[in-house]
Each structure stands twice: as structure tokens, then as C-alpha cells.
């Protein structure tokens, strides 16, 4: 299929400027990088995290007054799906020791550790077990396993990478546990990349002082997820897995302890009361909120449900305002939109160009700055390409790589990307790629301590839905380690809490009633209903014909 004839015409402009740009590149000249002051300006104006526009203080809840992106703020200022007065909590449908909400890497690790400690577990998850961001991680997982490295350097790299905004107890826990996590995964039978003698192959990555990135092929997350899922299935006697059954509301008891959650079978549209002595929230990220309309790299169910439920119950957040954008997500072909194009492409010398084939930025600015410059070129300067499916795209001139480093370099150095595009009729060693920034990672989230405790007794949280570990900037490979380290910690801590003896009092949803009252008092009009569970991608035309839904909305108002 490849590029359309119109796009091929546009590529001619890129080719026209290429010889002159190649000359310069060969001489080692590049488009000048921004000064620190200029960086600040472009970030301020165009980076979604810095822009004033599209952000506002939240009006309700534990973080009242905190400035957040509009999409996040309005999702937290939301009503429950349920009318609490209609819910009978006196006859739970499920009773268990530990309820785990979310079956990604964090949730499944938690389930295994809790089971190890001898308690009964129910793990409930929105889609299939393993349909999760964990499955998608390609690059690798950090852990100071080599002799040249130590938890000290892991701590240092992490906190420096996060501009020293990280929560220090979490960083220390991560650095301490990381090698233990790797050994655990190895003992479960994960196929790490190794030398023939068994030594792990560890690599450098952006921001590392020591080689610390461990991997399994180019599908590290999938390999982790497959192994954990398989192991959870082996423990059927202790771990019950409920698929397509997201939690939609937390339940507390009269003393304010967490007492489980309300689950929603999305297929039969039934609600179930799951009573549990301890609850772990491991619901992952929020890419599918498409903050500011950006495409994202996340899985279909990444809609921030856990943060919403905890916030409504009174648990505040850490760094929730901070989101990681990757500057080069795919903008074309449509089937790959949002997927990552590694930094390596620019590292190998490819220029970033506008519709006229002109350079407009230094290609290797820090991620956030680079993203802001691309956005500026599209929105302010107006020199982006518009794809056949109506997306902004800027050229990433990958053919330069073979010209600079010799025929075959693209194929050799970027095999996965080469195949991904070739499948759709684009030879990236001959034709440039179209890219645009993409939403990648929820840096902040539910506030926890190093035992994964929240401010509510019996309520724990782990993984991408939590905040603090990465501060305002996450290093590559630290989130997979996050989910294993804190997934394990949360499972062990919840089991300890249960084994210490927990007595639940009468169950209540009063926190929901109270929060909804606060919404009214704060003057929040027509609050949305959340968690939303899944994004809605129907077109306006289709939506306008869904009369029952439109009617329902009108009646509710």
C-alpha cells in the first residue's frame, strides 16, 4: 500500500533538500540546539505538561487546588456509575482475603506473592488477563545485576533522571529489590537475553551510568507477562482470575478501612460485591484519555480507573500532572499510529523535517523539548503534513541513515521498525517516516509508601497507576522494574496485613455520597461518569444516531 500519490509528491520536497542537508551532516553540522532559555520558552508554550492552556486546578477531593490537565481533572471530578443508595452491600457475591484490581505485571506479581504467603486471592481485570501495558514493553527492565553496577548507581541514575523530584523511599526500594525481581523472574522460567555462560546481557540506556538494561528479545514486557500469567494459572487453587470484570468503585467499612470493590461484568452488565480484607489497585496508566487529543502507545484499557476510584475514596496523588510524551510516535500508516519509533533513528542521524523538507529543530533535544518543537511546527507554524486519515505528521528522514553509514544500516540497526513499515509497503531506508509526539506514560499517580500502602488501611497500590517513584520524568526500563518490585511488595504487604488479623465492620459507600456532595458544593456541573473503562472511538456521525444513549444522557441531566 505505502504512501499515497499525494504523499509521494510531498516526499519529493524532502528529497530535494536532502543533498544539501547531507553535505552539512557529513561535515558534522546540524541544526543548532536551543539554549536553556529558548528551551524554557518552547516547553512553556507547547509542551502539554507546561502549557497553561488545557490545565486547571481541580475543585474537589484530597488534591483540591492542584493544577492538572483538563482531561485528568474532569475525570477526577466525576460521579460514580452507581447510585450508592441502590446498592445492597450486605450480601457480598465474593469474599476473599486479597482483592487485586488489574491483571498487568504489577497485579499478577502481587497475586503470586500474596498466594505465596498463603492467603486467598481474587484478581479482577478489565480485559483478558495480560491485555495490559506490561505486554507492550519492548526495550527492557532495569536492575543493577552486573559487578560494575550496584543499587547505589541505580538510585543515583533514577533520582537524577527524575530531576530530583522522586519520592526517595520508593527509589531506594526499587534499587534494593531490582536484582531480587530479576532472580525471581529467572526462577519462574523467563527467557532473558544471556551469554552462553548464563551471564545476563545488560545495556546502557538514556541516563544510565552503568549497563543496567536487561531484556528478552525485543519483547521483554510480553515475556514477563506471559510467564507471570502462566504461573498465576498454575495457582488456581489460591488465585481466582475474573476477566472482563473491572472494578468500578471501592468499598470501605464503617471504620474507614478498605473492604473490597464493586465489580462490573461488562459482558452481562451485572454488578458484583467483592468483599476483601485487603485490596490492591494495579490498574496501570492513562494513555487512552488522549490528553489534548494525542495518540498514545498504551493498551485499550488504559483509562486511569484506579486513580479515579482511590481519589473518590480520599487517596491523594503524587506528580499526577506529569505525563511522558515520546517525540516520535508513528503518524502514518494509520495502523501503526501512536506506536513508538525509537530515539535511535535520530541518534543515527535522521533529520526531523516539515512539509517543505526543511529542518526546524535539533533532532536530539531532550524528549520533552523535542516533543514541544514538533508540536510547535504543526500548530503554530502550520507546516505539518496532514495524513489521509487527518493526522499531523512531520518527516523523519530515515533514508539519511544508509547514506551516512552505508547501505544496509537501517535494516541491521532497526530490524523491527524496518519490518513493521515494510509490511505496509514503506521501505524506511528509501522513504522517510511520518511522526508526531505520542502519549506514552503516566508519570504520577496514587500516593503510596515503600510498602505500597495508601492512606486508607487495607488499600494498597502498585505499578503505573502510582506516583512518586519516577518523579517528573521516568527513565526507560524503570517501569517494568516498578511493576515487579512494587507488585511483589504490595502482594506481600497485603498478605501480612490480612495474616495479622483483619476484622471488617459494616460495608459502606458513604465516601461516594460524600464526594458527590462535594462536587455539588464546588459547583461542578454535569460531572462525567467515571471510571470510563474503555475509550469511545465511534465517529460523530455514528454517535449522533445513537438515540438511546443521547436520550439516556438527557434524562440523567
Amino acid at each position: 500500500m505505502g504512501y499515497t500519490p499525494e504523499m509521494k509528491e510531498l516526499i519529493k520536497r524532502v528529497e530535494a533538500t536532502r543533498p544539501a542537508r547531507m553535505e552539512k551532516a557529513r561535515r558534522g553540522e546540524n541544526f543548532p540546539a536551543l539554549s536553556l532559555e529558548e528551551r524554557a520558552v518552547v516547553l512553556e508554550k507547547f509542551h502539554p505538561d507546561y502549557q497553561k492552556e488545557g490545565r486547571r486546578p481541580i475543585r474537589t477531593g484530597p488534591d483540591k487546588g492542584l493544577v492538572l490537565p483538563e482531561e485528568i481533572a474532569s475525570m477526577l471530578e466525576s460521579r460514580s456509575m452507581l447510585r450508592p443508595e441502590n446498592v445492597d452491600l450486605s450480601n457480598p457475591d465474593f469474599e476473599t482475603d486479597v482483592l487485586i484490581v488489574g491483571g498487568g505485571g504489577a497485579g499478577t506479581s502481587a497475586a503470586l506473592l500474596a498466594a505465596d504467603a498463603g492467603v486467598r486471592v481474587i484478581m479482577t481485570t478489565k480485559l483478558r488477563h495480560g491485555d495490559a501495558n506490561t505486554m507492550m514493553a519492548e526495550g527492557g527492565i532495569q536492575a543493577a545485576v552486573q559487578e560494575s553496577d550496584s543499587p547505589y548507581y541505580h538510585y543515583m541514575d533514577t533520582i537524577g533522571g527524575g530531576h530530583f523530584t522522586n519520592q526517595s523511599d520508593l527509589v531506594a526500594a526499587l534499587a534494593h529489590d531490582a536484582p531480587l525481581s530479576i532472580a525471581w523472574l529467572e526462577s519462574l522460567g523467563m527467557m532473558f537475553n544471556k551469554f552462553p555462560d548464563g551471564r545476563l546481557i545488560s545495556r546502557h540506556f538514556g541516563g544510565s551510568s552503568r549497563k543496567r538494561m536487561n531484556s528478552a528479545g525485543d519483547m521483554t514486557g510480553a515475556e514477563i507477562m506471559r510467564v507471570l500469567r502462566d504461573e498465576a494459572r498454575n495457582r488456581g487453587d489460591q488465585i481466582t482470575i475474573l476477566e472482563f470484570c473491572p472494578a468500578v468503585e471501592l468499598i470501605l467499612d464503617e471504620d474507614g478501612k478498605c473492604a473490597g470493590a464493586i465489580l462490573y461484568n461488562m459482558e452481562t452488565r451485572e454488578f458484583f460485591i467483592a468483599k476483601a480484607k485487603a485490596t490492591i489497585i494495579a490498574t496501570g496508566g492513562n494513555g487512552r484519555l488522549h490528553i489534548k487529543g494525542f495518540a498514545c502507545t498504551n493498551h485499550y484499557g488504559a483509562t486511569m480507573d484506579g486513580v479515579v476510584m482511590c481519589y473518590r475514596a480520599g487517596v491523594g496523588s503524587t506528580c499526577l500532572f506529569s505525563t511522558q510524551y515520546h517525540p516520535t510516535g508513528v503518524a502514518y500508516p494509520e495502523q501503526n499510529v501512536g506506536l513508538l519509533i525509537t530515539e535511535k533513528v535520530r541518534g543515527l542521524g535522521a533529520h526531523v523535517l516539515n512539509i517543505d523538507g526543511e529542518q526546524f529543530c535539533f533532532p536530539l533535544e531532550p524528549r520533552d523539548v523535542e516533543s514541544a518543537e514538533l508540536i510547535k511546527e504543526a500548530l503554530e507554524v502550520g507546516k505539518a503534513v496532514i495524513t489521509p486519515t487527518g493526522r499531523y505528521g512531520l518527516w523523519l528522514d530515515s533514508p539519511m541513515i544508509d547514506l551516512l553509514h552505508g547501505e544496509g544500516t537501517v535494516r541491521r540497526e532497526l530490524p523491527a521498525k524496518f519490518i513493521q513499515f515494510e509490511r505496509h509497503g514503506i521501505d524506511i531506508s528509501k522513504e522517510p517516516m511520518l511522526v508526531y509526539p505520542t502519549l506514552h506514560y503516566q508519570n504520577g499517580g496514587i500516593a503510596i509508601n515503600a510498602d505500597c500502602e495508601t492512606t486508607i488501611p487495607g488499600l494498597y497500590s502498585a505499578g503505573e497507576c502510582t506516583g512518586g517513584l519516577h518523579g517528573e520524568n521516568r527513565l526507560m526500563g524503570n517501569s517494568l522494574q516498578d511493576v515487579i518490585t512494587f507488585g511483589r511488595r504490595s502482594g506481600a504487604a497485603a498478605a501480612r496485613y490480612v495474616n495479622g488479623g483483619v476484622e471488617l465492620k459494616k460495608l459502606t459507600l458513604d465516601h461516594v455520597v460524600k464526594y458527590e456532595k462535594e462536587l455539588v458544593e464546588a459547583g461542578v456541573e454535569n460531572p462525567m461518569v467515571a471510571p470510563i473503562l474503555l475509550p469511545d472511538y465511534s465517529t460523530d456521525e455514528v454517535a449522533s444516531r445513537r438515540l438511546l444513549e443521547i436520550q439516556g444522557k438527557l434524562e440523567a441531566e
Partner: protein
Amino acid sequence: MSHHHDSKEPKQKKKVQVATGDRAILPEGATTIPVYIMGKRYEVPETLTIMKAMEYAGFKFLRGAGCRGGICGACPTVYRKPGDYKLHFGLACQTVVEPDMYLAQIPFYPANRAAYKIEDLEPNPEIIFSLYPELFRCVACNNCTKACPMGVDVLGYISALKQGDIARAAEISFDCIQCGMCASRCMGELPQYHIAQLARRMYGRAIMPRARHLAKRVEEIESGKYDEMLKSLQTMSHGELEKRYKEREREPDMAPNGTWLPANDPYL
């Protein structure tokens, strides 16, 4: 959610309709093609994936969509094309619509899985044979390989296992995303991907050599070697942390793992 446009630039003054998030749109001038979703005709924009085309047509996925990036196995789809007797298989999130294709998703296919205790298993093919005796029902029809949307040589790994070669089976099956298409087409009624998962775990746990340096690091950590160090870092002033951060020595890129050690490093 609309982007603001500056009118300074003449190039794109005309108001463009812009796609946001994953919602597909039909930009001016774009063409649509007919596809048959479970037998019913819909007009969808060309160049979309089957997944986005179905969403464009008004379907909202509950099953049949997961990662949307070709790695979770939630969206396997079968289709036929006019004038072509062959069955085609693809991931809905990765396969582009073609005119007049007839398609159906198979988001789930039953396949039995044997439970086992990994810590009790010797890496012995006999164990795989006893957990999955149906392995020997394979007639080498190769339907599985033809159905695999990841291009895995399924018959290859099944054959390797019958031959007792766990390592080879583990390596051949590494790209499996457990979508179940192979099992759906199997004449011998094998649950291929579950068998492969067992093989990979046996391989990773007991055939690949363990990382000795890792075991040593675990021992060090468990003996408390780094506890004080990490504690003092947590209370260190911002200034001191920043200073130490800048002073970190970077391991040389070209040093193979396990060869480079900085002299007198008190933090290792």
C-alpha cells in the same frame, strides 16, 4: 478537543479536520471501500486497520481488542477475499482492510492447559509428553503454521518437542502471542501455544544456565550490604545528591559485561 490554528500561515489556512486519539475520520477527498463484517456490508475509509475500520463502522470492542499494537493476541481475525479460496489470518490491529474482504474475529478459542508446579519439573521432554499426550496426535498438516499471524513455525516447535528438543521449541516459539489461531485450526486438537509456554519456562528455568553474578548480587542484597548506603541516600541533601550525580563515572560503551570495574569504587 480541538487544536487551535494560527491564521498567520497561508499554507493550511483551510480548516482541516484532524483526527484525535485513535478515532478515525474520513478526510475530504478520501475514498471508502466496502468490507463485510461477519457478512454485513459496511463502507469504511481505505488504509484503516480492520480494528479501526470496525470502530469507524460503529462497533465498540469489548472483546477483540487489547494492546492495539500487535503483541497481546486479543484480536485475531479470519477473512477471505473474493475469488480466492484461501483462508487468511491476521491481527485486526495490524491488518489493513481490503475491498470486499469478508471477515470475522475469533477473540477466544478454547484450549486446555495443564497445571503444573514449575519448581518440581525436571527439564525433561517426558514430562511434557505426560502433561500433553495429545502432542502425538499431530499429523503435520501444517494448518497451524499457516494460521499464525506472527509467522511462528508452529509445526516446527511441535516437531521439536516430539523430538525432545525443548530448547529448540522454546526458541522457535518465542514470538508467540498466544492468540489461539493455531489451536483453532489444529487437526490433532492440540493446544500448541500452552505446550510452547511450558517448554519456554522449562528452558528459561532449567536449561539456560543461571546467571551466577545475579545469584551473588542477590546474596549481597539479602545480607544487607547496601542497606546503609541506600538509607543515607534517602536523607542526603539535594545539593549533595546533585553533586554526586554529576560525578558518576560512566561505564564505557564498548566494555563487554563483566569486564569493566572502576578502581576503588566504594559504592559497588
